[in-house]
């Protein structure tokens, strides 16, 4: 007997049985249970012979099917109807389980399609402005579990990922100090005063850009577009009100 599939592709014994039913063109709704059981037992034995690791669920099922088979082979005691009952129950139960599982497998295909469709669609990250506004609010109600934590982290990483990709393109072009100065002017427009050097480098993901930013800030201080104070180890900047342009 040749098998083109290995055990790892099956989700469990029921999945394997459904596969066998399909492969051997058996009818799930008028199932010849004996044929299926033979196929199943043969398959699992082959897996073992090939020294494949067989998951315990497959073996548990194997054991009960083997029991069913051997009981059937025993000479029938006419006075005892229990054996017949047992066989009927086992057969019906197996068919019922297979049909029930088949239903979910079928519906899973529909779900898979929906899932793939949805995964093509992207939501935009929450506006940083809202995060900033939220920062002002109180935290006393903070209620969360560790899953909330990982969700928050994922969100950060996703945003970080988007930023780093866009930034890579920008840095590739080697921003000049003048270009960075122009960028800083627009960044500063949205910053509440006083702002710190780290506020100005919040979008810098490479040291190179931090240095360019630093040089640009020095230049803006030189032309008195910005003024600074030092407090608590941090340099704070304000706009001087002077627009910084020479003309």
């Amino acid at each position, binding site marked *: 007997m040749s098998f083109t599939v290995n055990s790892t592709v099956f989700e469990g014994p029921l999945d394997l049985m459904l596969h066998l039913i399909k492969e051997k063109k058996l009818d799930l709704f008028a199932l010849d249970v004996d044929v299926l059981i033979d196929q199943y037992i043969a398959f699992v034995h082959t897996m073992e012979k090939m020294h494949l690791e067989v998951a315990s669920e497959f073996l548990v099922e194997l054991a009960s099917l083997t029991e069913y088979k051997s009981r059937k082979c025993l000479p029938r005691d006419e006075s005892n109807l229990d054996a017949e009952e047992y066989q009927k129950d086992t057969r019906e139960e197996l068919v019922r389980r297979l049909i029930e599982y088949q239903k979910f497998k079928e519906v899973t295909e529909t779900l898979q399609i929906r899932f793939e469709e949805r995964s093509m669609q992207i939501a935009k990250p929450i506006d940083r402005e809202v995060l900033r506004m939220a920062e002002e609010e109180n935290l006393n109600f903070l209620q969360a579990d560790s*899953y909330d934590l990982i969700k928050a982290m994922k969100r950060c990483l996703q945003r970080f990922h988007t930023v780093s990709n866009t930034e890579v393109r920008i840095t590739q072009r080697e921003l000049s100090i003048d270009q960075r100065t122009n960028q800083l002017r627009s960044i500063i427009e949205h910053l509440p005063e006083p702002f710190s050097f780290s506020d100005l480098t919040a979008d810098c993901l490479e040291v190179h850009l931090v240095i360019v930013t630093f040089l640009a800030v020095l230049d803006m201080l030189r032309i008195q577009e910005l003024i600074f104070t030092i407090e608590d180890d941090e340099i704070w900047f304000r706009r001087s009100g002077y627009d910084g342009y020479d003309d």
Partner: protein
Amino acid sequence: MAMTIEAVLEGILFVFGDEGASLAQLSDAVNLPSETVKEILDDMANTYKDEKRGFELSVFNNSYKFISKPFVREYIQRILTLSKTRTLSQSALETLAIIAYKQPVTRIEIEEIRGVGCDMMLKKLMAQDLVREAGRAESAGRPILYEITNEFLDLFKLISLDELPHLPQYEETQMSEQQLFE
């Protein structure tokens, strides 16, 4: 500046991005009954279907958020590497499907249908916020019950669980066909 309720709702949803906003939050914000807001949002959702629009309104469990239309993704990929889309294994999908149709459901009930243990899988799905605990069953040992989350609805583009495709009912139909041909 001139503005309409639509504009306010669009603005809020735009700003909140992937957080989305609930119907309750939106009605609170604009100070209108939720039925009215829902109607406006329904109308809005329709206008986004226009071929000139690049995003649409997604609704699940009375939560709303904007998501880009599917065709946008390939264009974005030309200029930026998007993180790989999430994948769900066959076993994850099966487990989710069983929970969605049978919820609230115990681990044993799921395992009976799948025929395999799914302790690890449940933990993984919970870590991904697709499944959550929903109290305990009254039965012996009071086992934990599981149900699906809003995240699940979002991930499968379902407005609510009622939208799930019907489970096939082939016992009767197929059986009777069978009998016909016998």
